[in-house]
């Protein structure tokens, strides 16, 4: 049986605010894969003085933010989501097999991926909806299994009110036991061996609001911060 919940009738974080919050946790000198969708919005929020090496699956090592001027848009320099990007000084290009060797081979400190569901054991679902004949895998399966950490970023609840923070996946998995943190429009959670730990709550929301929008029991540490959005 699928649980339905109603997101609280309070303002939630925008996609850009979610991406901004996530970007704060990308540390200097990390190599970070940026997936398609909301993850792309995190790129612009990495502080300029912080040297994070962004990887795009299509062979860009050292991806920079979109060009500021229209005339600098280059069809040969696009993100995984097919949006225009730039190359940072010292960036490099590799072909697809090398790009994914880097991912599987353990060179990614972190991958930022969109998600349909994340389970309490870190299982990730983001490629196919139940009952569909097929779906879009893209690079997610390789990147999720290869990265040292996976940061999932998604709305907390689906449009029809189905929780996406779940005890066990009901969607087909992309990779098992890989997600380490989840950034939603309601909260920041970490995935631990004991399950989800609620780290931060969006401004104006209560811990109960967040718990009510989950289909998994959250562990509540002594200090739960408010997201600096």
């Amino acid at each position, binding site marked *: 049986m699928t649980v339905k919940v109603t997101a609280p009738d309070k303002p939630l974080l925008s996609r850009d605010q979610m991406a901004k919050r996530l970007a704060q946790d990308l540390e200097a000198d990390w190599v970070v894969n940026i997936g398609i969708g909301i993850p792309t919005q995190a790129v612009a929020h990495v502080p300029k003085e912080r040297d994070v090496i962004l990887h*795009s*699956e*299509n*062979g*860009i090592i050292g991806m920079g933010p979109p060009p500021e001027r229209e005339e600098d848009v*280059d*069809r*040969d*320099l*696009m993100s995984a989501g*097919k949006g225009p990007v730039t*190359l940072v000084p010292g960036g490099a*290009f*590799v*072909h*697809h*097999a090398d*790009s*994914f*060797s880097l*991912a*599987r081979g353990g060179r990614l400190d972190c991958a930022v991926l969109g998600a349909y569901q994340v389970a309490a054991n870190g299982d990730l679902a983001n490629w*196919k909806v139940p009952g569909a*004949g*097929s*779906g*879009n*895998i*893209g*690079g*997610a*399966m*390789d*990147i999720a*299994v*290869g990265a040292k950490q996976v940061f999932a970023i998604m709305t907390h609840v689906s449009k029809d009110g189905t929780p996406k923070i779940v005890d066990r996946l009901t969607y*087909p*998995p*992309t*990779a*098992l036991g890989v997600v380490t943190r989840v950034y939603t429009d309601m909260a920041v959670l970490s995935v631990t061996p004991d399950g989800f730990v609620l780290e931060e709550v969006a401004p104006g929301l209560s811990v109960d609001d967040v718990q009510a929008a989950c289909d998994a029991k959250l562990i509540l540490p002594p200090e739960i911060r408010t997201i600096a959005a």
Partner: protein
Amino acid sequence: MKKKKAASLEEAISHLRDESVVLIGGFGYGGVPEQLIEGVCGSGLRGLTIVNNNAGTGHTGIARLLEEGCVGKMICSFPFASESHVFKEMYAAGKVDLEVVPQGTMAERMRNAGAGLGGFLTPTGVGTEIAEGKPEFDVDGKKYILEKPLRGDFALIKAYKVDPRGNLIYRKAARNFNPVMAMAADFTIAEVGEEVPMDALDPEAIVTPSVYVDCFHVTGG
């Protein structure tokens, strides 16, 4: 020296045959051999298996190949892009088959074929639908599945510059699948923007050596 430069687009395409497996390079806008694909569209070829990251968008390129009835099967990692209307309709109507492959597995299967290997063990897809029917192995406590090489009869690729022998360099992220596809096909046809004189390419910087290129078509752009 073997003559690899095609006299025309038609000549470059004339090698292809019905029922072939055709690897087509490109990711998004970059590295797509647009003219070669257009050439195949007008060829009347049938029953092609197309390997590409996506399944065509809009009504040009691979989408047009599908509309023209050239394609029997697509092998892709991301077939249902928002603009992939032609593929979505044909797939729903049962007019085209689909094999969905994780993107890194797709690239590695081709590299594997090009390297003369018989398969590889990858952690990608363990515990998912992708692992169904594939042998699983435990190596030093970690689980892997067996993936087999993916060979093409033909590769249609796009490069930035070519020398008379057929050595290739690429431009920025337009490199993407093109070098591994060049390795993985029995016959590789490259669409290239510019031909440069012999020795104009730095041997240290050549990405695809000429031995992988059977024919090239210079577009001048």
